[in-house]
């Protein structure tokens, strides 16, 4: 028997099984169930406008949960994602305005409206997000601060900084780029959601196809074992937090472009939603298990459900209650499943 056909069948099984697994994924069926229920109970649920809205709402929270997933895979947690999201955009605006002042331009006009170049804002926003993430990572990996503490401190500090930098007033964002990201729709799909999907594809490629991404799983699975093979685990932990920071910043761009403003208290509590989505998507809080793809499905499920509750006229308070319950159930199920697998 020659080796070549053997290899081919192998690859074939892998591909078939992953497509197969997607079809068998309960998340997909849950999404379909929610959509069907929505369509049956409300004439508005399947209108293009509502679909676009749901996808838009998915984008920001989905990006946060992607970042969360990369950190959770290494067995850490990042509580600062929402604060980083807002902070990055605010820094983006403030620094751009300062740059404008240096150039003799007034980019902050009447009524706290920003009228400078959006491209510069977005670039600085993303750099800021990465920096915050890397600093978190350094604290966790090299200074050995528990990630829970480290990122909780970051969360608190950034929330404070957000108020200092904005003086407590929102910045309003004007510019065609913001409109494009926030409002335009291609074949019914909003730009923000496309940004989310592109990020997902990049992250998915990274964790499943590259050696470096595989290290995230190794570290989350058994950090000591990984360290003993000579892998410099600390670097990968920093990388994971850096990715989380970048995702947070992107989420900030998507969210504020939609709102056309950024405000210090924006997105409070989104970190918990991001954790909830990641966990519902099957990412283990203990590390080493999970896929960004399923985190994406979970975020769609999440947004579709909240949208349906909104259409039904359920108040936000009950929606929050639902988030909490969903998280408890998801964590419960994942820990029971782990125990069953262990036995």
């Amino acid at each position, binding site marked *: 028997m020659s080796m070549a056909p053997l290899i081919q069948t192998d690859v074939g099984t892998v591909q078939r099984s992953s497509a197969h697994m997607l079809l068998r994924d309960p998340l997909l069926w849950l999404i379909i169930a929610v959509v069907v229920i929505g369509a049956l109970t409300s004439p508005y649920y399947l209108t293009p406008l509502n679909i676009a809205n749901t996808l838009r709402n998915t984008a920001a929270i989905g990006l946060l949960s992607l970042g969360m997933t990369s950190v959770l895979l290494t067995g850490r947690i990042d509580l600062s994602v929402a604060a980083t999201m807002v902070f990055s955009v605010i820094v983006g605006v403030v620094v751009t305005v300062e740059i404008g002042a240096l150039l003799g331009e007034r980019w902050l006009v009447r009524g706290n409206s920003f009228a400078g170049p959006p491209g510069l804002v977005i670039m600085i926003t993303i750099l800021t997000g990465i920096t915050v993430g890397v600093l978190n990572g350094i604290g966790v990996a090299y200074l050995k601060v528990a990630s829970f503490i480290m990122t909780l401190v970051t969360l608190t500090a950034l929330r404070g900084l957000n108020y200092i930098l904005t003086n407590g007033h929102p910045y309003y964002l004007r510019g065609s780029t913001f409109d494009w990201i926030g409002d335009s729709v291609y074949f019914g799909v909003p730009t923000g959601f496309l940004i989310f999907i592109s990020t997902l594809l990049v992250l998915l490629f990274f964790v499943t196809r590259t*050696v470096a991404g595989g290290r995230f799983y190794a570290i989350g699975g058994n950090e000591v074992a990984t360290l003993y093979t000579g892998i410099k685990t600390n670097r990968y932990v920093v990388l994971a937090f850096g990715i989380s920071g970048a995702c947070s910043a992107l989420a900030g761009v998507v969210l504020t472009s939609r709102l056309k403003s950024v405000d210090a208290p924006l997105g409070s509590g989104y970190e918990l939603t991001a954790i909830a989505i990641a966990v519902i998507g099957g990412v283990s809080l203990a590390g080493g298990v999970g896929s960004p793809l399923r985190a994406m499905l979970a975020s769609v499920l999440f947004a579709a459900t909240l949208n349906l509750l909104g259409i039904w006229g359920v108040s936000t308070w009950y929606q929050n209650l639902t988030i909490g319950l969903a998280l408890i159930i998801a964590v419960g199920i994942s820990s029971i499943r782990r125990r069953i697998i262990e036995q």
Partner: protein
Amino acid sequence: MTETSPLLEVKNLSKRFPGVLALNNVSFDLRAGEVHSLVGENGAGKSTLLSCINGLQKPSEGQIYLSGQKTEFNNPVDAIRERLSMVHQELVLCPNLTVAENIFLGREPKRRGGLKDVVRLENDARKLLDRLRVPIDPSRKLGLLSLNEQQIVEICRALAADPKVIVFDEPSASLNDDQVTHLLQIIHDLKAQGLGIIYVSHRLKEVLDISDRITVLRDGQIVATETAENLNERRLVSLMVGRESKPGESTYSHRDLGEVVLDAQQIGNQQFQDISFSLHKGEILGIAGLLGCQREAVIRALFGAQKIDSGKLVIHGREQRFRSPHDAIENGVALMAADRKQDGLVLSMTVEDNISLPILDRIRSFGFLRRRSLTEVTREMIELLAIKVSGFAQKISQLSGGNQQKVVIGKWIARKSDIIIAEDPTRGVDVGAKFEIWRAIQSLADEGRSVILLTTELEEMMMVCDRIVVMARGRITGSFQRDEFSAEAIAHRFFV
């Protein structure tokens, strides 16, 4: 000494820890195509020697030569690079990754741009697995494999670095007989392929089977290096144990035993089977055994921290099924865990606080602590156990190891537990304090409490126990009354 220089040579190696000489002038060598085993009791210095060879610890004195070349490893990664791999006793693997990913972790074949080469990864892994003649699918998740298969993956990982020397550190501890046979077959093949193998195991029969030479360590020194043909089990045991030790030293005083307080009737779970023994009032019962004999699991089951699947546990004449340590404590069973810092004490709290932790519910009225009773209990314990403290409010972390251990003992006396399970109570304390801890345990028995004792050193156990039960591989293999105590006879039961 050009062509015949051994693969690995250790010359005059010593390792000093504060207050202890763990290795004393040890010399050891390994030739290509040879299996050289290391045996010795717990604490004889095997692990220290292996860590020095492997780069996990630095020797205080002495040199290590690889193929005649002097080497110094700063960490295990250096050792792997110099083609010396180690198969660890505990599996150091990632259960969430596939077999192939585990084998090549840190050495993955890459395509351009840092991409994974899954096909090559799995093919390479398959080649290694074939080399060991085991039908394991390289794309399976490691966590789904049996312990035995995981062990084989661990061996493959050692092989993946293309080593010249492989160190096996008790690879068979968790395997059953068939699996051990398979493992030995693998080692035999590796040896035939010209590798040098250091093999460490407590199972003397397999050591005699597989080895070309055997080195016996005792108290950090080499007592013998001989070819396996010149040795047999009996001789090995007597070399390992050394002198016949004298029971009945200083701390032991004869007591009359009372009624049975704890009766284990054929209890078992996944880790141990068919364990039966009874514990009398005022008795100190030792459970002896080597690493992997599962005595730790047995005492945890008695304490309700592990499930008992079969058999009956009768305590004070009533059958009990403990669902948690809380149930056990309610029934007067206490466990002093070996790791007192982690499991036994709250280091940042005071002596008084620690002693009172398990009895808080007894010394409160209407939810408030009765300070006076608290102080009384503390004083009582400090006097009873002769704990040296500067005051009741002294922090536990400021006490010496021996005194910390006494506080742990005091905690459970205060709780009025009458069945006390002590796991290695003298770990990490100096000689003088050891003696006082044995006295304290003796005085527990004098007061009519019963003690189940686990120690690493058999000699210590023989000093204080009324009876010793021996365990091996999750079963009881022997039982000795005090007048029958002999280190050699007991050690023989370790290897059944």
